[in-house]
C-alpha cells in the first residue's frame, strides 16, 4: 500500500503543494524538450527526403559546434578583428564546412548506394559517425571546449519571475533557444510546403524512381537536405554547447532524441516538436518526482518507455504517415 501511495499519490501531492517548483520543473522539461526536438528535426529532415535513418546526426551536432569553436580560436590566434567579428566569421565558415560535408556525403556515400535497402544506408551512416568521430578528434583534439556564446551575442543571465507564490528562474539562453527553434521550425515548414524545392523534396521522399522520372535531380535534393540538417545541427550544437560545453560526450544526446523521433513519427516535423516536448517534460517530471523511488538515473530509459507506450497504440508514431502494407 505504502509503495502504491508513493507511486500514484505522493508525487501529485508534492506537485500541488509547491506549484512554483512544478512550474520550474515544467520549464526545464520544456527547454530540454525543445533541444531534443531540434535534434529530432535533423533526423526527420533527412528521413523525409531520402528515407535514410541518419544515425550520424548526433555527431554532426558535435562536429558543427567544434568547427565553429575551432575556427573562432584559429581566427583569434591569427589576430582577426574584435571578438564579435571573429565569431561571426567563424559562424560563416562553419556553415561552409557543413555545406562541404553535405556535398561530400552525397558524393561519396549516398550516390553509390542509391536504391539499396534501408538498413544498408542506415549502416553507412554508422560508418560516417565513426569517421567523423575520428576526424573530429584528430583535428580538434578530445578536450571539451567552451562555446563562444558571449561573442555571438547570445543573451546571458536569468530572468526571475514571481509567480505562484514562489520564484521561477528562467535562463535567458533557454528563452533564446526556444525562440530560435520555433522560428526554424516555422521556416522549415514553409520551405517544405510552399517552395518548389520543398515540393521536390516531398516527391523524392515518396519514391526515388518516380521523382527521377519527372526530372528532379536526386543529387541536388540530397545535398540540400543534408545541408539543411547540417544547419539544424549547427544551431543545436550552439544551443547545447552554450548550456554546458562542447565535447564528444554530447553525441549521446542523439540517443536521447530517438524516443522523440518514434513518438512523433519519423516523417513529421510537427511530430518532432510535440514528441520532443512530451519526452522532455515527461523525463524531467519523472526524474524529479518519481526518480527518488527508483534511485536516480531513470531518465536514461524513462523516455524510451514513454515512447514505447505511445507506440503500442500508434505504431507509426503520433503524427507519422499511416503505414500501409500490401501483399
Amino acid at each position, binding site marked *: 500500500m505504502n509503495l502504491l501511495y508513493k507511486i500514484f499519490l505522493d508525487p501529485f501531492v508534492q506537485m500541488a503543494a509547491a506549484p512554483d517548483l512544478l512550474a520550474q520543473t515544467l520549464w526545464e522539461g520544456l527547454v530540454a524538450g525543445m533541444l531534443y526536438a531540434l535534434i529530432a528535426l535533423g533526423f526527420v529532415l533527412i528521413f523525409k527526403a531520402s528515407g535514410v535513418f541518419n544515425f550520424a546526426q548526433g555527431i554532426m551536432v558535435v562536429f558543427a559546434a567544434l568547427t565553429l569553436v575551432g575556427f573562432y580560436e584559429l581566427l583569434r590566434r591569427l589576430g582577426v578583428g574584435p571578438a564579435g567579428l571573429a565569431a561571426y566569421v567563424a559562424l560563416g565558415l562553419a556553415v561552409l564546412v557543413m555545406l562541404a560535408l553535405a556535398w561530400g556525403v552525397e558524393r561519396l556515400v549516398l550516390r553509390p548506394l542509391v536504391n539499396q535497402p534501408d538498413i544498408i544506408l542506415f*549502416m553507412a551512416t*554508422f560508418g560516417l559517425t*565513426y569517421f567523423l568521430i*575520428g576526424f573530429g578528434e584528430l583535428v580538434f583534439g578530445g578536450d571539451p571546449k567552451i562555446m563562444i556564446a558571449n561573442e555571438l551575442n547570445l543573451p546571458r543571465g536569468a530572468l526571475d519571475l514571481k509567480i505562484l507564490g514562489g520564484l521561477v528562474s528562467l535562463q535567458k539562453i533557454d528563452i533564446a533557444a526556444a525562440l530560435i527553434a520555433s522560428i526554424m521550425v516555422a521556416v522549415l515548414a514553409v520551405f517544405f510546403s510552399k517552395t518548389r524545392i520543398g515540393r521536390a523534396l516531398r516527391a523524392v521522399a515518396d519514391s526515388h524512381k518516380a521523382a527521377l522520372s519527372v526530372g528532379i535531380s536526386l543529387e541536388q535534393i540530397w545535398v540540400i537536405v543534408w545541408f539543411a540538417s547540417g544547419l539544424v545541427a549547427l544551431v543545436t550544437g550552439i544551443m547545447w554547447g552554450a548550456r554546458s560545453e562542447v565535447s564528444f560526450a554530447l553525441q549521446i544526446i542523439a540517443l536521447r532524441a530517438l524516443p522523440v523521433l518514434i513518438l512523433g513519427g519519423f516523417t513529421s516535423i510537427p511530430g518532432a516538436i510535440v514528441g520532443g516536448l512530451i519526452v522532455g517534460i515527461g523525463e524531467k517530471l519523472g526524474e524529479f518526482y518519481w526518480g527518488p523511488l527508483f534511485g536516480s538515473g531513470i531518465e536514461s530509459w524513462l523516455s524510451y518507455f514513454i515512447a514505447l507506450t505511445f507506440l503500442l497504440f500508434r505504431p507509426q508514431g503520433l503524427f507519422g504517415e499511416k503505414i500501409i502494407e500490401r501483399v
Partner: protein
Amino acid sequence: MLYREAGQFKTRYAADMAIFPIRQDRIGILVILAVAFVVIPYFGNSFLLQAVMIPFLIFSLAAIGLNLLTGYTGLLSLGTGAFMGVGAYACYKLATIFPGVHILVWVVASGFVAAAVGVVFGLPSLRIKGFYLAVATLAAQFFLQWCFVRIPWLVNYNVSNAIEVPTRTLFGVPVTGPNATPTTRYLIVLAIVVAMTWLASNLVHGRVGRMWMAVRDMDIAAELMGIRLLPTKLLAFAVSSFYCGVAGALMVFLWYGGAEADVFNINQSFFILFMVIIGGLGSLIGSYFGAALIFMLPILLRYVPDQFGIPIRSATVEHLSFMIVGALIIFFLIVEPNGLARLWQITKQKLRVWPFPY
C-alpha cells in the same frame, strides 16, 4: 581449377539438401576444424589465444545470435549488448548461488535466462516494425544497463560493483578464474562456439528457419500462409538472446575474468550489429567474417605502424583507426551491400570455373 565437383553425383534427396554438398567443402571444413582444435592451441602463443582467438570466437557467437534475429527474421535489434549482459550476470548469480554445479552447465543455462528476458522485450515486435522496432529495443538496452548498475544484488553486493569470476575446474583443470591457462579457455570456447554454430545451422535450414525467412521477406504474406507471427517472432527473439546470453557469459567468464556494467553498453550492441551487416545479413559464415574484420581491424591498425617503425602517438593511432574503420564500413557497403559472405560466394564461384569462365 582449384575447385571441381565433376563426378560427384547426388543420388538421394538427403545428399541434395546437405549443407556442404561438395566433397571439397567437406574436406575444407574438416581442415579448418583440425587447425582450430589442434594446430592453433599447439603452436599459438598466449597473446594469439587470449587477445585474438578467444574474443573473435565470442564475438562470432554473439554475431550469429544477432544474425538469427536481424538477418534471418528481419527484426532489427540494438539491444544485443544488454542481452549479453543478462547472460553474464545470470551466469554469475547462478554460479555463486549453486557453486556445486559445474560452471559450463551454468554458462549454457544463463542463455535461457537471457532468452526469457529477450522474449519479454520482443513482445512489442508484433506491432512495431522496422526502425521503430530498433529504437524500441534500445529501451531494453538502456533499462537493462540501468539495472546492472543500480541493483547491487546482481553482483552479490561487491564493493567494486563488478562481476568477479570465481575459479572453477573441469576434471581438476582450472577453467575460469585467474589460474586458467589461455589454451584451456580457448578450447572450451571453441567447443561451445562450434557446437552452437552447428545447432544454428540446423535450425536455419529446417522448418523454423524457413518460417523465420518467410516472416523476414514479408510478414503479412507469411501470416496468410499460415505462419503464426507471434510465436515465430518470439522464438527468434528467444533463440537470438540465448546465443547472445551465452556469448556474454563466455565473454566475462572465459575472456575478461571480471566485468562492470559498462562492458555491455550501447557501443557493444552497435559493434555486434556492424559485424552482422559487414559480414552479411542472413549468413552464418558471414558472422564469422564480420567478427574477424571488425574485431581484428583495430588490432592490425595498432600494430602495423609499429612494424614499419613509423612513429605515431597512440592517441593519433586511435583517432586514425576510428576514421579508417568508418571509411572501410562505407567502402564495404558500397562494394558489396550483401556483405563479406556474398564476396566469399563470388570468389568460390570464380575459382570453380577459372580459368575458363564460359
